[in-house]
């Protein structure tokens, strides 16, 4: 079940094992790494480099023999930089089987790329008869070429703790992988992206105000903020809300995450934080800093207090800009947070309240008298400050708010999944009835498998214990009745998987 779910999340499964080919294939079918509905399963069984090359290229992508193929170009030029595999979408579901002997050739030199390219197009790959060293080689190959972020997961079993000690995560059952990836992995990606885009945004707004001010202060780098504000901004006023967002944020709860493995796909394709998102963040920051500067400027430019006294001084200007900035970034993070726990409330509103407390403290008479040169700013708040503040917050937040509202409408994403019930995949008939699984899992050579699977030696019985909701051909019914407990190794880690039928 775990593997079915992972397949739905478009996660490709590679099985690296030391077992025989038939065993491995059987296990693959029973675990849903390979499915009956796949468009093709290719076996690489060549005994030397040439054959293997032909098999790899010719079987899956006949056009890879052309000159214009990027891999061919790379192989000819041999540039110094490492080659990142271009993303290619297969036109159907394919599986690949390769045994250790062929793999020894396939891992050399040019064939590495071919193997990788072909294997990346497959939904599932079985490498059987592998030595431990070859297993490590294959993992290295995939890691270095695709350059995807990776974690090592060890499943503890009875054969020892070695893999567990070497891995980033360790747990006891294979099915926990589902939760790790689809729930926690997804949440982690989501949180990371939100954190990054928010952090960049708040610092852009903070800093770019000085760009606008430069035109008005003779380009003399006079700061728009009080020095204490600059010190405390990232450290005290805005650190806790960001922490709260990164620790507790959930865009969909765990039940939905497990129910819809397709939600995992944006993480694989880097959709939530990439160059485009960064540019959006930058533009939002520039716009916000523009509003943040010009609204207070317009407010105090030609203005006085109601009793005639001055409000167009640097101190008042700094105060207005600071307070507007804090409000603006607080409202922005409040909009970004979709999962409001008590802690989130406390962090966000608490930071805002804390800012006001510190403000009154720093601007108090007592402190000014004690340290006149350090604490220069004194004074009180004015009604125009509030008006200016409200206007700048509204102007900054409303476009982001509107965009957030429009995005799911115009670009269907998560909400779309939520509104539509999960479609039950209607399984079509077997496409390749000729590829029958051998009924013998332990044969050393091509035995009587064909004889037995043809059904001539057993009585045909109607099969009631069908684990797949599909109509199957008679002959394959027999294979479903084989029950065996096997020692399987996945990623070089021993574990036990009860086979379900």
């Amino acid at each position, binding site marked *: 079940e775990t593997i079915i779910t992972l397949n739905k999340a478009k996660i490709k499964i590679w099985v690296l094992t030391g077992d025989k080919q038939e065993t491995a294939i059987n296990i693959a079918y029973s675990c849903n790494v390979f499915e009956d509905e796949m468009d093709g399963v290719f076996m690489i069984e060549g005994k030397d480099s040439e054959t293997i090359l032909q098999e790899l290229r010719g079987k899956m992508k006949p056009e890879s023999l052309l000159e214009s193929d990027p891999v061919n170009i790379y192989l000819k030029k041999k540039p110094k930089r490492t080659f990142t595999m271009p993303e290619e979408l297969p036109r159907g579901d394919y599986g690949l089987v390769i045994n250790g002997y062929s793999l020894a050739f396939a891992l050399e030199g040019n064939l590495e790329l071919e193997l990788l390219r072909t294997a990346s197009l497959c939904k599932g790959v079985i490498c059987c008869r592998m030595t431990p060293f070859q297993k490590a080689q294959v993992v290295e190959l995939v890691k270095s070429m695709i350059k995807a972020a990776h974690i090592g997961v060890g499943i503890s079993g009875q054969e020892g703790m070695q893999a567990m000690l070497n891995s980033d995560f360790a747990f006891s059952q294979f099915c926990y992988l589902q939760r790790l990836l689809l729930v926690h992995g997804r949440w982690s990606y989501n949180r990371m992206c939100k954190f990054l885009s928010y952090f960049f945004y708040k610092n852009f707004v903070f800093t770019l105000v000085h760009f606008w001010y430069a035109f*008005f202060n003779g380009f003399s780098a006079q700061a728009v903020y009080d020095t204490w504000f600059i010190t405390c901004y990232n450290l005290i006023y805005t650190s806790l809300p960001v922490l709260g967002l990164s620790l507790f944020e959930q865009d969909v*709860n765990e039940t939905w995450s497990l129910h819809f493995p397709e939600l995992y796909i944006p993480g694989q394709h880097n959709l939530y934080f990439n160059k485009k998102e960064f540019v959006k963040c930058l533009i939002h920051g520039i716009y916000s800093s523009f509003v943040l500067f010009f609204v207070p400027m317009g407010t105090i430019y030609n203005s*006085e207090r*109601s009793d*005639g*006294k001055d409000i167009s001084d640097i101190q008042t200007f700094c105060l207005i800009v600071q307070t507007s900035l804090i409000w603006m970034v607080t409202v922005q993070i409040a909009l970004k947070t979709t999962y409001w726990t008590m802690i989130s409330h406390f962090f966000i509103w608490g930071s805002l309240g804390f800012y006001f407390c510190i403000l009154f403290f720093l601007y108090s008479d007592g402190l000014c008298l004690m340290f006149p040169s350090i604490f220069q700013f004194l004074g009180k708040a004015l009604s125009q400050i509030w008006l200016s503040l409200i206007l700048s917050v509204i102007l900054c937040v409303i476009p982001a*708010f509107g965009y957030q509202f429009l995005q799911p409408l115009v670009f269907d994403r998560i909400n779309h999944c939520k509104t539509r019930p999960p479609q039950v995949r209607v399984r079509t008939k077997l496409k390749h009835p000729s590829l029958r699984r051998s009924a013998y899992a332990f044969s050393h050579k091509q035995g009587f498998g064909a004889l037995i699977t043809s059904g001539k030696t057993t009585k045909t019985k109607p099969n009631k214990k069908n684990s797949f909701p599909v109509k199957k051909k008679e002959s394959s019914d027999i294979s479903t009745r084989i029950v065996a407990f096997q020692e399987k190794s996945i990623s070089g880690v021993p574990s036990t998987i009860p086979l379900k039928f």
Partner: protein
Amino acid sequence: MEKEFHHHPSRMPDNSAMKQQKLPAHQLHFSARVVLTIFFATGVFCFCMGVILILSAQSIQEIEINYTYICENCAKLRENAFNFDQKCTCSVPFYLQENMEGDVYMYYKLYGFYQNHYRYVLSRSNNQLVGKDIMDVEDCAPFKVSQNKTPIAPCGAIANSMFNDTIILSYTLKSSVHIQVPMLKTELTWWTDKYVKFQNPSLINLSDRFVGTEKPPYWQAPIYELDTSDPGNNGFLNDDFIVWMRTAAFPTFKKLYRRLYRVQYFMDGLPAGNYSFNISYNFPVTRIKGEKSVVLSTLTWSGGSSLFLGLAYTVTGAFLWLASFALMAIHMTMKKKKLSYRR
């Protein structure tokens, strides 16, 4: 398959709500109705606020006279710094069309004077100004000490460049009868400035307390002679001085100079008629390509006559309104599309 019984305690993480990410929480979903309501309500609020602000700004009367080049000979005189001890006065007549009712405030306005320059803003000594240590001139570069190495009081570039024009408003009661409009020169500053941030070393015998210091190079008289008639307005407590020391945020700024004293003919403000400003022109703005002017203005609760806030609110309100309608339209079309898609 039975598991071995572990002798050591379980290493499972706590089943607490915090560690299992199961904290009770409220998931925020902005439905279309909520979003549209927010847009609409904010739009209405902004629009109303804007209209109120515009109306209040319109009710203010303001008159500004730019006298930089009207007093041409004075301007030319001041361009040469060696003429500092020559006095130059200038008279600028103007006509007030309507009565200015209520409190009237007189400001001087400067253009192109960068009080917000970084080095300029730093050049002051707050220790000195609060009366703690009159000899502390550390931060005041380049006006720390005079040529004979005595510390300057008040030190720094801000104090040194203080505005020193004298502006007197006079009213033509009848032809050839001119009276000086009574003006107050107190209560021009923030309360905290006058009573906390700026303090004299001691009120008694001010000139003695400043022994050992010198006046800033650009000043005509030392600090303790700024207003000898009123000891509460002398020394560091001088209102004009304090107003000037509050550095402005932009190169164009106005500072409060005098307030109307509502007595005799000016009980209800300034009546309409002929007026003139008698200015003793000292401040050399033409050298820095700046300008200066006098502003007379009434005020309301929302501050001066600046229309910016009012306009900005009105425009924002109108825009939000339009946006809410547009969003509603988009939402309706998308909904229809989705429904047809589902079928």
